[in-house]
């Protein structure tokens, strides 16, 4: 997801900066929530604000990735788009499989937000296999 080397393009440098700008607040707010910084509002309507605040960087990161696709040359665009589609597809497949498992097989309930780290997991593991634009 992040690599800022000598041969990176302006589009890639922007992507790295935007990723850090979105992921650092995401991690900080999440860490705060995990350690009880927002315990007083949990379960109350105000907690929806917290949910929206944590989700906003996710939307931002998706925008940053789509901007990378838009601003890159045709080869990097094709590779990144393939990676995005594969990671999205695998994440949806696993989330659907687990959701049906919860509905029909009594599987342990997992929070829906896990689809986001799952997306980046598949993004990372698929990267070594996506080497051509074909």
């Amino acid at each position, binding site marked *: 997801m992040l690599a800022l080397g000598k*041969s990176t*393009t302006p589009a890639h440098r922007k992507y790295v900066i935007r990723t850090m700008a979105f992921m650092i607040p995401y991690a900080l707010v999440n860490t705060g929530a995990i350690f009880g910084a927002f315990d007083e509002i949990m379960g109350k309507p105000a907690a929806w604000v917290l949910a929206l605040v944590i989700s906003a960087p996710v939307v931002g990161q998706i925008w940053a990735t789509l901007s990378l696709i838009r601003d*890159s*040359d*045709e*080869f*990097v665009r*094709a590779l990144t788009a393939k990676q995005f589609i594969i990671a999205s597809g695998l994440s949806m497949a696993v989330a659907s499989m687990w959701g049906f498992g919860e509905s029909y097989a009594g599987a342990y309930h997992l929070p829906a937000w896990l689809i986001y780290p799952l997306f980046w997991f598949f993004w990372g593991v698929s990267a070594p296999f996506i*080497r*051509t*634009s*074909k």
Partner: protein
Amino acid sequence: MKNRLKLLRVERGWTQEQLGQALGVSRQAVNALETEKHDPSLDLAYRVAVLFARPVEDIFENPHA
């Protein structure tokens, strides 16, 4: 797509980075073209042709010919 891009680039003593800058693409894109991991768009193929002052088919083999 088979091509003579690497040969033409090396003849001029250019690095992939330098060729990428001349074409307005990344070094990765040049490498992908040279190793046949990317078929260029018509626009990029024409840019390459103009840069080397050769017809497109002198550089990229027409797979349908």
